[in-house]
């Protein structure tokens, strides 16, 4: 069994985010990055499948040199090898561009399973997983909460609205976009981190995977016009006074609005 895990490196959750001069993204210099939290669950699920039997876990990510650290972390946690797609030509790709790159890596690797997070912490699009499946011509399940493998089939529990779960069966190869919380993500052991240095990271450009001229800002069908902090709203009423007075006024307000 071979599992390909797609990882995105995103700004660290504690990073101070400032908008760049063009107003279309954040300033990326001098901030810390980490693996997208949703993707860590996908990686953990792949490593559990590996622990339970025979599996090779390959991780892949797109981005500049800094992405190496995300890949090394995954290798330290137990992945076997990595494919780093690094090419300035890919910069500015939209979700479809990213999906094309990852699908091309997947086609070269021919995994039985492609795993990734449901969405990324930074752009929250949830688009890449289904797009990869479509480009590969294989089945897909999103918002996966449980994965079971047997006889070339994958049985998944998917999270639906209102706490309901849906059970679906997919033929392999397939693409699964996992929900956060489906497992407890392990820490890389110190020995694992030290051993990760010796594991291979294969670096590829757009041309190496047959996508020269087909990805990047020029090929993007979606572009970001502007990002900005939400404007301050109006109509908020500040209740002032001692604690007793505040509680009394608040209860009066709730009753006045008919909320109680």
């Amino acid at each position: 069994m071979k599992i390909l895990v797609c990882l995105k490196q995103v700004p660290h959750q504690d990073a101070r985010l400032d908008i760049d001069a063009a107003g279309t993204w954040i300033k990326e210099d001098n901030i810390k990055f980490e693996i997208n939290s949703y993707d860590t669950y996908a990686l953990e699920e792949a490593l559990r499948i590996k622990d339970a039997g025979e599996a090779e876990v390959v991780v892949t990510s797109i981005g500049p040199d800094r992405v190496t650290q995300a890949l090394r972390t995954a290798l330290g946690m137990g992945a076997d090898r990595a494919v780093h797609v690094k090419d300035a030509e890919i910069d500015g790709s939209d979700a479809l561009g990213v999906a094309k790159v990852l699908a091309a890596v997947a086609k070269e690797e021919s995994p039985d399973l492609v795993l990734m997070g449901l969405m990324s912490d930074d752009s929250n699009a949830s688009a890449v997983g289904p797009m990869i499946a479509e480009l590969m011509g294989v089945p897909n399940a999103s918002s996966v909460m449980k994965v079971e493998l047997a006889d070339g089939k994958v049985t998944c529990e998917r999270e639906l609205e209102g706490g309901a779960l849906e059970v679906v069966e997919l033929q392999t190869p397939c693409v699964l976009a996992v929900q956060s919380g489906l497992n407890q993500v392990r820490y890389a052991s110190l020995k694992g981190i030290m051993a990760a240095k010796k594991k291979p990271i294969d670096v590829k450009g757009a041309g190496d995977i047959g996508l020269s001229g087909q990805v990047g800002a020029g090929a993007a069908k979606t572009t970001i016009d502007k990002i900005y902090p939400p404007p301050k709203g109006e109509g908020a009423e500040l209740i002032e006074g001692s604690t007793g007075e505040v509680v009394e006024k608040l209860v009066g307000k709730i009753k006045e609005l008919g909320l109680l």
Partner: protein
Amino acid sequence: MHEWSESQQMIRDAVRRFIDDEVAPQVEELEHGDLPPYDILRKLYSTFGMDEMARARFRKQIEAEKRGEETKKKSSGGDPESRADQAAATLIPIIELCRYCPGMVTAMGVSVGLTAGAILSKGTTEQKERWAEKLLTLEHVGAWAITEPGSGSDAFGGMRSSARREGDEFVLNGSKTFITNGPHADTTVFICKLEEEGVDLRDRKILNFVLDRGMPGFEQSGALRKMGLHSSPTGELFLSDVRVGMDRLLGGEAALSRAGGGRESAKGTFQTERSGVAAMALGIVDRCLELSLKYARERVQFERPIGEYQLIQDKLARMEVARMNLQNLVFRTIELSAHGKTMTFAEASAMKLYSARAAVEVAMEAVQIYGGNGYMSEYVVEQLARDAKVLQIYAGTDEIQIRAIAKDLLAA
């Protein structure tokens, strides 16, 4: 070495994540409650495979000893880069834990560093197998008992604890104080003097015995109340006619005829202890600076963030200078390990002196930047300032370090 390598940064990030998840939520209970640190430390060890790594290293050493090979120095395996990573893998958890709970490092260091270290350096192969392995993996908690009510800096000279030989047995008596892990220790290395007719008390032979919890005549007190390091239980030990066989004398029969009377080997333990203090100080200073910067940006007085005032900037700049110096000292420690070298005793003392003073100065200045809030327990700098003070006292006071440095300089 001028910066953390990629894999060292990965170790730091992973340990920091563990501390955010497992230590930070329990700091209140560790510092102001009665929660002993051992279960969290064991979880740290098992999560990162530190117990397995320690066991593997230990087994390798024991197997070599049994084959009659010369015991290799612990840093002799692998290339310089992997030796550097090994050293960093020991120091990074110390730095990271000290950002929250320096007491936990003290509890851990005394158990795996001092107690197991003493058994590994002085014990027979059989004694190492009997006691050291479980200490190195933190399965057992260890205490290293040297200080007494009447002997601190003059550790050996003023020591009154005694071992009286009776045939093949020894009868141990004495009391020890300020013993880290004393209340909880499963295994205690008890340092005392052999009763020798006609030999002055100051010149008597120093012996190390291994005691187990619950031995007849061996009493371990509850935790003493102290200024800081609340997450590290400290206690007293009382021995009244504790009978032990030769199997509990570290080094066995040979220890009775060792030159130097056992004083030199304890110095090796002091040296290890001292070089760990730079990493502890770095953790405290790093966190104090981080918290101070945050506060300097957010705290507004006279309609400006206090970070805009030069008196505050001066404190922040001095903190950064201390952080850089401490980091460089840690890098030097790692670099020496990578090349199989160790510091001289005087150098380790100089490093300890600077580190302890820097940690206290920075932590007290962090309290000053926080002002009234800094004096309140709710703001972490208060705890770090109390914790930092011990670095100037234990593992040799500042004054003892100065004496060691000056003695070395003047002898040259």
